[in-house]
Structure formats: C-alpha cells, structure tokens
C-alpha cells in the first residue's frame, strides 16, 4: 500500500450514524467491500445493545455521546496500525450516536485482507482497541427512565 492510497483511506474510517446502524446500511457496506477482486477475506464484527438485567431492571436503550473529532483521529490511528500489522487492504467502523434500543445494532467493524488470518486478527484488534481507546460514552437507560453509565470490560 503506498502513502497516497493510505491517506485517502483515512478520510472516512470511523463514521458516526445517528441512531441504530441499520441492516440495510450494513448490507450496502458488505456489497461495496466485496467488489474488491484482489481480496480474499472479510472479517466483520457487529455489536448489538443487549437487554441486560442490571439490578432487576432490563436495559431499554443506550444513548451514545462522543468526542467525535478526537474519536475519528484515534480510529484512524487504530486502523493504520492494524493495517500495517495484519496487511489489511481496508477497514471501516460505523458507530451509533444518540439512542439505540435493545436489540438494535450500535457497532459495525469490517476489515478486509488477502488472507483470512489477517482479516480476522486485524478486525479483532480494531474492536478491542476501539472499546478501550475511542472517546465514546454509553448511557444505559432503564424502563423507569433512570440511567447509569456503561462500563467497558
């Protein structure tokens, strides 16, 4: 990958989606990525809001806020590092902003590579790092409108 193609890729590596990440959008992304003939493997991670029981009450929704500019810069760094380490041809993150109901999708990550191991391990590293390093916050909302701040493990 030369410097030019790498800098183009940095433009839109993390995209914030208002509300849930729709299945149609996910389908569109997968179709777009699968037009690359030199690529053999796509690894995808999809995160969904679970209706976890916390203290007897189920999570109804998560409301996400983010320091968007910083998150985009950091996401580019995370993807650049993974691309170098795992020979990714391309990678992309879609993350919700605002309210996402239980059962809806809040995160989509795709990493593509010539070979399966690169795609799988590159995608995994991006998912792990984004949970730890992107300035995004989830507020868990319960049925009585009370809330608590989500904690990532």
């Amino acid at each position, binding site marked *: 990958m030369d410097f030019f193609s790498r800098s183009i890729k940095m433009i839109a590596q993390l995209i914030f989606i208002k509300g849930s990440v729709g299945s149609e959008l996910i389908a569109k992304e997968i179709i777009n990525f699968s037009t690359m003939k030199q690529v053999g493997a796509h690894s995808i991670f999809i995160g969904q809001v679970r209706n976890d029981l916390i203290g007897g009450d189920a999570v109804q929704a998560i409301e996400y806020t983010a*320091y968007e*500019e*910083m998150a985009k810069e950091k996401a580019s760094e995370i993807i650049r590092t993974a691309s170098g380490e795992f020979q990714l041809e391309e990678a992309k993150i879609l993350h919700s902003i605002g309210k996402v109901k239980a059962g809806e999708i809040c995160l989509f990550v795709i990493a593509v590579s010539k070979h399966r191991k690169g795609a799988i391990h590159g995608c995994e590293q991006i998912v792990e790092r*984004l949970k730890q390093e992107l300035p*995004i*916050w989830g507020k868990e909302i319960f049925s009585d409108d009370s809330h608590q701040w989500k904690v990532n493990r």
Partner: protein
Amino acid sequence: MKILAFGKIAEILQKDEMELSGPEDTLALRKRLEIDFPALQGMDFKIAVNKKIASENFRLNKEAEIALLPPFSGG
C-alpha cells in the same frame, strides 16, 4: 481556555462546555475542577489537550482545547 465535558462529567458539571482561565498545567486544572465540583473528587477521568490524552503535568496554553474524559464505553 475552552473546556469540553463528556459523559458522566458533563452530567456532574451540568454543562458540556465552559471557559476557564488560570491553571497552567493539567494537574493544576484537575485540582481546580475538584474544588469547583466536589463530585469530581476521586473520580476516574482523563484530560485531553487538543484531542490527545495528556500526561498529569502537561502545560496548557490559552488556545488549547481541553476535554474531560470519563472512562470510555463505546461499542
């Protein structure tokens, strides 16, 4: 300097943006905030300066964009 607050900290501050002048490094800023907002005492949060996580005694200038970041919980 402009200070952005996020997540639980924006909730405690009851605002997500404010102006502040005085503290010359991030350590002094943290002490000042804990006096103005006692609920921040003992809270785990990081300070970003111009969109980079800053060390504890990072020097601040007036044009810096400061952000108060509680533990991340994206995804």
